[in-house]
């Protein structure tokens, strides 16, 4: 019996091994390599390569461009995810309540979600066009400097991101709504619950878990946001839309500061891992409660 179990275990390990190896080769090894790089002054093309201990991190701690990027990343993440969740739930409820044309509405939603973010960014570049853009045409006579005003650029980027990713939340929630048994609502009706009470007591609580999951995915994406601001504003004006990943990209591929850029990447990695861990704990807690 025990021998058989041991053999089974061995076979199990053998079967997992390829996946494990691939994971190690594709994520753990590069991860450690980036961590190692971040402890060095390394600018390969100028033959600079020496151990720097925590120098890069010490510089980051006092680097206003880094703190600005961290603040922008935080603001972008909180605002865009909050808006996406709120609008996503609204869209899902609207879709659920719709009697006709659901398929069309779903396809339209999916269209925005399926669009590569670079394409979406280009589209918004046109919408934000100072003279001919839809937004300024609608504002007739009082045009706004969407992408060139330091106080408007980040909201403009967030709006573009919300438009593109809200459908993801909407479709997840819609799928969950479809699985809520109709009897629940009938029972609520019998008990004399109004529409608001039904929404607050039944629909939203039942959406909770899926919303948390959607929030997890969206938060992790938002923390690493790159292409939408890279295309729309290039991080400007005055770095008001430069996120940590944009900063890491510039340090790595333009300034060719491999050590320093890796340090920025490590910070992003730690941030993402921390947030993922917190969410997973929350999710687990909810499973136990439910």
């Amino acid at each position, binding site marked *: 019996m025990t021998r058989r179990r041991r053999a089974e275990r061995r076979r199990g390990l053998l079967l997992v091994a390829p996946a494990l190896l691939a994971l190690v080769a594709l994520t753990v090894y590069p991860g450690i390599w980036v961590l190692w790089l971040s402890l060095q*002054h390394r*600018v*390969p*093309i*100028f033959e*600079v390569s020496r151990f720097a201990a925590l120098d890069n991190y010490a*510089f980051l701690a006092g680097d*206003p*461009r880094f703190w600005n990027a961290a603040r922008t990343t935080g603001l972008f993440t909180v605002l865009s995810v909050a808006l996406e969740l709120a609008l996503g739930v609204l869209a899902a409820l609207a879709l659920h309540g719709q009697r006709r044309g659901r398929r069309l509405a779903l396809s339209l939603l999916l269209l925005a979600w399926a669009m590569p973010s670079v394409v979406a960014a280009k589209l918004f570049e046109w919408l934000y*066009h*100072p*003279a001919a853009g839809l937004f300024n045409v609608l504002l007739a006579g009082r045009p706004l*400097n*969407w*992408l*060139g*005003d*330091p106080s408007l*650029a980040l909201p403009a980027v967030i709006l573009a991101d919300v438009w593109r990713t809200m459908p993801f939340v909407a479709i997840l929630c819609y799928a969950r709504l479809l699985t809520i048994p109709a009897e629940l609502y009938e029972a609520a009706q019998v008990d004399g619950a109004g529409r608001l009470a039904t929404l607050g007591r039944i629909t939203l609580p039942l959406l909770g878990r899926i919303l948390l999951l959607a929030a997890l995915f969206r938060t992790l994406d938002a923390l690493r946001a790159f292409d939408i601001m890279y295309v729309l*504003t*290039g*991080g*400007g*004006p*005055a*770095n008001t839309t*430069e996120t940590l990943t944009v900063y890491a990209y*510039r340090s790595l*591929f*333009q*300034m*060719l*500061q491999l050590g320093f850029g890796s340090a920025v990447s490590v910070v992003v990695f730690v941030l993402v891992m921390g947030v993922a861990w917190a969410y997973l704990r929350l999710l687990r807690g909810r499973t136990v409660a439910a």
Partner: protein
Amino acid sequence: MTRPIALLLLALVLGGCAGDASERGAVTLVFKYARILGPADPLPGLLREFEAAHPRVRVKGESLPWTSDEQHQFYVINLEGRSPGFDLMMLDVIWAPEFARAGWLLDLTPHLVPGELAPHFPSTVEAATHDGRVWALPWTMNVGLLYYRADLLARHGLEPPASFEELVSQVRRIRSAERDPALEGYLWQGKQYEGLVVNVLEAFWASGTRLLAADGTVFPEPARAAEALGFLRALIEAGVSPAWTTAADEELSRRAFGDGHAIFLRNWPYALDLFEAPGSAVRGRVGIAPLPGRAGGPRGAGSTGGAHLGVSRRSRHPALALALARFLTSERAQKAIALGAALSPTREALYHDADLVRRRPSLPAIHALARAGRPRPVTPYYLLLSATVQPEFSAALVGVKSPRRAIADARARLDHFLGAIR
């Protein structure tokens, strides 16, 4: 004289070896370049022509990503990874010293015939030179210039402005007389990107200062640099340039001017072909002039741009790759490119070539402007310089920082990063 012959022999031997090795008897050269926009891409035809002259050689033209940033990233990853799958590469004019310093380019100096580069603009050769050696051949030329609405200036009896102060007063005069609220004054590129650095450099030169001194000091005259930056900010504050200048790149400003909504525009020569195209709102109403200087200061100069061709140091067929570079930068090839696309040649003689001038009558005028153009700082760490000053310049333009503060901050950061390299 012996060198070219030796090279030729080497090419024959190399070609022969590869030929014996493979069944089809052909060497494949890979050429990385960005697709050329224009009525007809002349490149494939030129590559076939090269193949016809070199029977054992096949040339594979491979497209680069679209933007300069992505192209640079592509090269860095592939060249630093030491497995470049290409022999000849198109380089943005600002990269040659960096790539040379990194050891990615073949030193062309020993292979050049004396006087071989003399027909090209000196500034393009300067941009390809690092440590007194030549690392790439000049291929296409670009220069910043001033576009003006010839019809509007003529209606108000004005000549193209010689100084920026004059430009400002002309804008005020024309706009108050025209009473067209949609008519902007002076358009240029103030978005946070490489184009902003180009525009600020031109402002520096117009004020008689520089970003990088010959001895390597950054911002050798910070007060003057701050004044020049402040002047650009003042253009926006005074409404001479629209508020959206801080988000404007070449295309955004080119379209606004092309729709007839501005009096002056700073841009590259490519825009002229579009302004003169059938159906353009400003066709026949556009003039070009040198970028103005500041009143009482030196003459203005446009920044030069364009592309070089460099041979990868890891190419297995360096002699053939060089031959291809020579062919593509030859007078014949540059003429074909200038005829087929809105790109300007680096060979000065072509600006007075009868066929080309018939097709593009502005070429002789562009020649004078290109000759007066200045390269951006020629240094291996240009991109570090540019990526560091971009947000600071942008901050000064949108008024988040004072110009003086922006220059001081940029200097401090550059000192930190350059300190580790030098």
